[in-house]
């Protein structure tokens, strides 16, 4: 692999990682702040992608579809928190796992009822449909670069929101001391609802902007969910910084795992076991720091 | 003092410290616990007494300093290893198995002294020695007749007694007792004080306690902690008359 190809592959890995970050950051915020494990998080990624597909056909514009989709998913998130999730704050994680697993089935099946089981492609918006030629054989799709840029902007916004705003202060305080926040007269219920909706919207938004490059297909949410768990475990629960580090790391490991060839004792280990690399990375992190790279010591 | 010097030192710390962020909860503490003595640690709330016990029992690793059990350094060992070396502790906040009966609490504690609990095929209830040790501990803690009741159904004072029974059931030679009398009625307190007086013969006891009457009734040595550091240490009479201590602690205590 020459240097140019190597750098392009790094770009591929980072781009994938940034997208994962969007999904994982929502997951880690909901974990860290609300203490809720939400298995249905990945379903919102899928819902976002399907919304992008069906709404963009309806409106004829991906941008309108994304706008409407985000509003819709925020509403769904608020409704879910209000109807179901807030019943679980004082319950064992086991019940959170079960309830949100039930939601996965409900969402997956509703998707099947509403949109069917086919794979669909989503057209890239025209002004981003170009490719930049990098080598004589390879061009890089502008849309992929645009995704990375959007993810980076959102990451910065999230950082500012958490570090610099009153809501962010409440979020940080809520994470460390529930009673204190309540004694300050802050409506923690409202904060939770907002955080949950924010998390869900992030996942759905990631699904929407990813739709043109990933296609939309049944079960896409679960794939992402599990990888995002790995991101969160590697980065440390509740740490947005950790989610970023974990996501980029996994993006790179996954990308290079697919293309690097490694043989051990005559067996081709990579790319044969490419699907396992991210989990092996997780195992290594567990041995080194069970609480994750940026996690608080347990 | 002469008598005390002859006794074997069981537990000893050297410059033991524990910091939480910038705060030194335990600061450069050196103390000794001898066989046949009750060493009481007193001090205002937040003085670092519980943290000190946590450092000795292995519930917390120290930031600096060393802990010795007899000649062996136990600094940084985990709590289960320290427990197996014969150091038993009780907790200030009741830390028992609420759904279990009082007997099962003590039995699980006593069972920890089997060479191993990796035994799968025989009912736990058929280990006679374990049952006897548990029963003995319950009687010592004043819980005879209450064995079959789930701890969650016992009174707060009785739960405190279960806490002590569990510690005793492990048959420790060194006891670290964190406010054993807290939450107990006068009658139960008297009983535990009596128990301590009886136990001291074969044990080294480190006692953290707020009940000054009880402390002066049983303590052979007193250490006063303030802000994580040792303010004074010595025989009870010397401490009682120490002006520094009176100002910092006892004086205010009596003023209440």
């Amino acid at each position, binding site marked *: 692999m020459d240097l140019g190809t190597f750098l392009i592959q790094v770009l591929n890995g980072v781009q994938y990682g940034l997208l994962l970050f969007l999904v994982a950051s929502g997951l880690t915020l909901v974990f860290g702040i609300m203490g809720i494990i939400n298995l249905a998080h990945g379903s919102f990624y899928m819902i976002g992608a399907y919304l992008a597909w069906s709404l963009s056909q309806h409106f004829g514009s991906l941008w309108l579809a994304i706008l409407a989709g985000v509003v819709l998913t925020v509403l769904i998130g608020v409704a879910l928190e209000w109807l179901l999730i807030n019943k679980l704050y004082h319950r064992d994680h*086991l019940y959170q796992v079960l309830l949100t697993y039930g939601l996965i089935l409900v969402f997956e099946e509703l998707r099947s009822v509403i949109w069917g089981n086919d794979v669909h492609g989503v057209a890239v918006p025209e002004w981003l449909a170009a490719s930049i030629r990098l080598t004589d054989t390879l061009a890089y799709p502008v849309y992929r670069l645009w995704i990375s840029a959007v993810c980076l902007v959102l990451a910065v916004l999230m950082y500012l929101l958490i570090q610099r705003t009153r809501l962010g202060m409440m979020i940080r305080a809520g994470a460390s001391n529930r009673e204190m926040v309540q004694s300050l007269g802050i409506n923690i219920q409202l904060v939770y609802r907002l955080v949950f909706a924010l998390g869900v919207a992030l996942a759905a938004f990631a699904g929407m902007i990813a739709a043109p490059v990933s296609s939309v297909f049944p079960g896409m949410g679960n794939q992402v969910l599990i990888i995002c768990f790995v991101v969160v475990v590697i980065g440390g629960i509740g740490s947005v910084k950790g989610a970023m580090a974990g996501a980029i790391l996994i993006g790179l490991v996954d990308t290079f795992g697919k293309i690097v060839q490694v043989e051990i004792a005559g067996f081709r280990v990579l790319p044969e076991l490419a699907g396992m690399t991210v989990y092996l990375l997780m195992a290594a992190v567990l041995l080194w720091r069970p609480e994750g790279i940026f996690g608080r010591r347990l | 003092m002469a008598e005390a010097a002859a006794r074997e030192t069981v537990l000893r710390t050297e410059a033991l410290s524990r910091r939480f962020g910038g705060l030194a909860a335990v600061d450069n503490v050196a103390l000794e616990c001898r066989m046949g003595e009750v060493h009481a640690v007193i001090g205002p709330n937040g003085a670092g007494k519980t943290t000190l016990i946590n450092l000795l029992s292995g519930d917390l690793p120290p930031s600096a300093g060393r802990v010795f059990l007899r000649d062996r350094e136990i600094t940084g060992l985990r709590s289960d290893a320290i427990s197996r070396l014969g150091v038993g502790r009780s907790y200030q906040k009741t830390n028992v198995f609420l759904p279990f009966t009082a007997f099962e609490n003590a039995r*699980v504690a006593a069972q920890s002294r089997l060479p191993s609990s990796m035994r799968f095929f025989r009912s*736990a209830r058929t280990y006679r020695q374990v049952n006897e040790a548990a029963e003995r501990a319950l009687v010592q803690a004043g819980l005879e007749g209450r064995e079959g009741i789930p701890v969650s159904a016992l009174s707060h004072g009785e739960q405190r007694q279960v806490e002590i029974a569990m510690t005793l059931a492990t048959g420790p030679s060194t006891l670290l007792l964190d406010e054993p009398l807290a939450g107990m009625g006068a009658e139960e307190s008297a009983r535990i004080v009596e128990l301590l007086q009886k136990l001291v013969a074969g044990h080294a006891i480190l006692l953290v306690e707020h009940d000054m009457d009880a402390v002066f009734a049983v303590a052979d040595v007193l250490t006063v902690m303030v802000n994580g550091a040792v303010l004074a240490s010595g025989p009870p009479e010397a401490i009682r008359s120490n002006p520094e201590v009176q100002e910092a602690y006892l004086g205010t205590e009596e003023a209440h």
Partner: protein
Amino acid sequence: MAGARVRLAVLGVLALALAALPFLADKFYVQLATKILILAIFAMSLDLLVGYTGLVSLGHAAFFGFAGYLLALVSPQYEAANLWTSLAIALAGSAVLALVIGALVLRTSGIYFIMVTLAFGEMLFHLFHDTSIAGGSDGIYVYVRPVGTIFGWQPFDFEDFTHFYLVVLVAALGVYALLRMVLASPFGRVIVGIRVNEHRMRSLGYHTFRYKLVCFVLAGTLAGLAGYLAAVQFGVVNPDMLGFHVSASALMMLILGGMGTLVGPAIGAAVMMTLELLFQKITDHWLLPMGVFIVLVALLLPRGLVGLVTGARAKDDSRG
């Protein structure tokens, strides 16, 4: 003691009734009952982790599927495998796998533990899904069921659904008895103590990690037994068997029946399978009512069906 005797009596009657089933019902129901019993073994093994030790694993299917794969891999393609050796390999394999995974995942707790067990289950899924070790995503078939002879005598024939059912029934009762025994043993008391208050167990001198690990291995091995039997029954093993839907359904059986009771998860398995059939009859989109049902159980039935009847889980813990 009286409680134990009543339980024994009830169990005896139930066992007899179950043993009589193949002589009363037709093949479809016998095969359904076989499947339920296999899942009951799986759910009971998970109960040991979740209900008794307090370790919420979302990757238990890894051991279930792994043992199934081991059977498929050691079976000659068109001949019967030896029951005893293939079973021993499957059980030993899932035990070793549980030892390795357990040693890693038990370094974490709480939410981490849930996520990490899920992730390791997925790792196994990818191992079989992405490589050609055993048919990749298509899975692998066990064309002929294993044969178990004892010095040339063949006590049962797995190709006969009644024989297989009875063997599975014996296995399920055996697992139940084994777990009851283990739970009453010093080891069992330790793991229950760990669930209630691990910190205190440690300060009493228990090296809790080791007990949790042994418990994890035991649960994994029994899950392997269930997986082995499932592979024999269906004659096919595929990556989905290791996936998180299987793990989550087992968790659902546990909660539905009532965790920490052993009997509950078995009942949960029966109810879940029945509901699945029922929903499938009503609609092609049967996962929709199933999902709603799961949500409702999580919200409204924390102690499960057994808890509904006895109203007490604490009772089980306070024995002793």
